[in-house]
């Protein structure tokens, strides 16, 4: 199963990060692309509640994604289902993936671990053995080596 993990250290306490992640005002500041506005941000932050975010790109196209909150543990953990309902990644159209966010208090504030999991469910249905992460690590290492080779 394909997943993508990004880690960030933030000079803000977990409760503040959690609220920026989940409140419409917070989402309005970060979800959209740099040069286009967030048009709609609706959140119902409780297990089973839904969210909807709509934004416009500079090229005028509008994109919308929505999902359901699966785990809500303020201020440490947030899990939600996620899908493009309009625009977005064509490969993923209508496919449900999952976003998992963990917020751990650290000296400077918060260590945020963001995982977009279950990407490309079609590919993962074809392969029950799992082992995606290993495969991707492998892929990444391979790619780095190729780049080193190309640079050499």
């Amino acid at each position, binding site marked *: 199963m394909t997943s993508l993990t990004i880690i960030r250290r933030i000079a803000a306490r977990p409760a503040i990060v959690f609220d920026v992640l989940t409140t419409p005002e917070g989402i309005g*500041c970060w979800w959209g692309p740099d040069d286009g506005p967030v048009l709609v941000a609706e959140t119902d932050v409780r297990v089973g509640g839904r969210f909807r975010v709509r934004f416009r790109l500079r090229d005028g196209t509008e994109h919308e994604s929505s999902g359901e909150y699966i785990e809500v543990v303020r201020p440490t953990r947030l899990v939600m289902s996620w899908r493009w309902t309009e625009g977005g990644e064509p490969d993923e159209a209508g496919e449900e993936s999952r976003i998992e966010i963990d917020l751990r208090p650290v000296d400077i504030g918060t260590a945020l671990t963001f995982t977009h999991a279950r990407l490309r469910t079609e590919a993962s249905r074809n392969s029950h053995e799992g082992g995606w992460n290993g495969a991707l690590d492998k*892929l990444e290492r391979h790619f780095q080596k190729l780049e080193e080779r190309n640079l050499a």
Partner: protein
Amino acid sequence: MAKSPASTLDHTFAALVDPTRRAILARLEQENRISISDLARPFAIKLPAVMKHLDVLGEAGLIIRSKQGRTVTVQLVAGPMEEAMDWLRRYERFWSARLDRLVARAEEEEAKVQSAELREHDE
């Protein structure tokens, strides 16, 4: 986000899921060109099983086989892997840009809260 050929990616990712196939690819990374018998030697599985894995890798376009005399050699092909990495990187860029702004916003909020707390403390 830009479109990418789904079927090629599916083939690549499906081929990479199997640990034996990953081991084969790892070996091919080390040695640019290797005969099938040399390639099969370290594996506990029989040659026909190795051949089956090579078929999957070949269909995914990850390797190329060539015959020199009686020896069949195998070579790694980089294209499909690069494509798979590009696809993942696009998603990574998508979220990275957003998380950067999330961080900026949270840090602004934190600064506001801290100065409010300081004022409270002073009063």
